[in-house]
């Protein structure tokens, strides 16, 4: 092994690929459920199908794919092997079991600490603990001190905090340990989950990968450093405030502003990357990523609107929260995964099939292992779907929301086909 070379730290393809497959399947199931229950978005939305969709999307799709992607990216970002591949397999199995029980519980309309929900939540907490252990142990072994590593460590800790809060919320509904409305805890659950876990992880990984993919040097890392302080301050303030039945509203507003400032700084960092990039033409993986970043800017506006209140805009109560949630989960997180899948998955599959053949035989390149036309199609359907969701929700147009749900289902199916094409790739030798 050459000194300083970290490529031999790459995990087995069998650790990474199943995450993408299971993630895609959950995305398809969630999108299918949405098509049949889209009307819940326009009315009372804390319904069994919507809770199922939200948890399938956040845990089954975004989290599962992120788990898999991170096992592949930790060696790239931190220049270290993942702590344990066996633990990674076990984590996925426990996570899938947890999701099964959780969704079973939701679909049986059990909004209390029922057997299925408690079991599901417990399994998910165990899976998250296992994942956090794997990530944090890997990070501890890394000698590479970088802002990326800091963001990833923080996101792992927030993930732990958030699933613990989720379980506490379920138990508190039955045992009433703390007399605070569950909707108040829900605010912290959403902020810690969406910003602390997902966004901070994405920032951590993007800080390393975006300059690598677009070929840029000399970036303004201060944006990320200040963003780190602002985001942490905002998230922790909100997490502490919700434990008090009445708290100064101004503090909550300040915390939201800090989070918004952190998000703006991340967008400014990306603007810097895109402005200075040497690779001007965006490939099929970078296009959905760029669209996702634009959606994040709109999500940011939606969160400001949420704070101003639905009534300010003449909208029914809770509507703007749904719009912001859709922009964040269906828009930003899904868009990032739709794009970055093509920058990560083909490489580990390609290495598995062709590593020993390069130079001896003519082999396909990683970029030739998926159908580029399908990527173009699902980039369009994805963008159209997000736009339709926003229009349909803001103007209460049922048929438009239905069209949005159908186009998202189509997106998930096309993405699923392309992922399967990569994962089940058969070795090809091109004749010279």
């Amino acid at each position, binding site marked *: 092994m050459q000194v300083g070379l970290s490529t031999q730290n790459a995990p087995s393809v069998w650790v990474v690929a199943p995450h993408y497959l299971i993630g895609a399947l959950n995305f398809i199931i969630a999108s299918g459920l949405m098509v049949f229950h889209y009307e819940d978005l326009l009315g009372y939305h804390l319904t069994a199908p919507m809770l199922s969709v939200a948890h399938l999307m956040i845990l089954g799709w975004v989290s599962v794919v992120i788990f898999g992607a991170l096992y592949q990216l930790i060696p790239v970002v931190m220049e270290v092997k993942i702590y344990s591949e066996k633990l990674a397999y076990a984590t996925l199995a426990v996570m899938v079991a947890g999701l099964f029980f959780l969704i079973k519980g939701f679909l049986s309309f059990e909004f209390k600490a029922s057997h299925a929900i408690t079991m599901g939540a417990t399994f998910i907490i165990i899976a998250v603990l296992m994942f956090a252990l794997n990530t944090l142990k890997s990070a501890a072994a890394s000698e590479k001190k970088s802002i990326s590593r800091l963001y990833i460590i923080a996101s792992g800790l927030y993930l732990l905090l958030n699933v613990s809060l989720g379980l506490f919320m379920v138990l508190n509904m039955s045992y009433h340990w703390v007399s605070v409305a569950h909707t108040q805890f829900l605010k912290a659950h959403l902020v810690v989950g969406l910003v602390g876990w997902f966004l901070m992880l994405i920032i951590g990984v993007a800080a390393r990968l975006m300059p*690598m993919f677009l070929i840029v040097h000399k970036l303004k890392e201060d944006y990320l450093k200040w963003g780190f302080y602002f985001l942490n301050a905002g998230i922790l303030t909100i997490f502490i405030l919700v434990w008090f039945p009445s708290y100064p509203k101004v503090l909550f507003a300040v915390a939201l502003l800090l989070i918004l400032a952190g998000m703006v700084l991340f967008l400014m960092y990306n603007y810097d990357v895109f402005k200075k990039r040497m690779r001007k033409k965006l490939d099929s993986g970078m296009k959905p990523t760029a669209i996702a970043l634009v959606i994040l800017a709109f999500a940011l506006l939606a969160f400001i609107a949420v704070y101003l209140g639905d009534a300010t805009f003449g909208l029914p109560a809770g509507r703007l929260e749904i719009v912001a949630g859709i922009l964040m989960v269906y828009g930003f997180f899904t868009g990032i995964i739709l794009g970055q899948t093509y920058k990560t998955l083909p490489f580990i599959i390609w290495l598995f099939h062709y590593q020993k053949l390069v*130079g001896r035989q003519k082999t396909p390149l990683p970029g030739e292992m998926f159908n580029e036309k399908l990527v173009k199609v699902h980039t369009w359907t994805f963008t159209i779907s997000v736009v339709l969701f926003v229009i349909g929700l803001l103007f209460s147009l049922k048929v438009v929301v239905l069209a949005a749900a159908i186009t998202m289902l189509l997106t998930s199916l096309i993405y699923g086909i392309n992922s399967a094409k990569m994962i089940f790739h058969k070795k090809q030798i091109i004749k010279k």
Partner: protein
Amino acid sequence: MIQKEFSPEEAKVLEILKQVPDPEVEVNIVDLGLIYLVNIDEKTKTITVDMTLSTPGCPVGDTIIQHVQTVLEINYPGYDVKVNLVWEPQWTPELISEEGRAQLNQ
């Protein structure tokens, strides 16, 4: 050290190495500026190549190095091929050739 001048024989090696692409950006490693030095020692029948990677965490780094090794062994039978991975000086995008820049945006 980055070699500036190449003898005709060394230039031939560079030409051969243009067959090796970086699988991510799909541009050959010579135009990406990853080859720092080429030396052919006819007495010891040794070809030495010093090369770098665009980033230490490059997920396909050792595959690229293996590709360089194989392609030279095939083209120079009887020679001992040594590929050294170096990190100094650090690679920067300024090392990409005009040809490489054009290929990046094709």
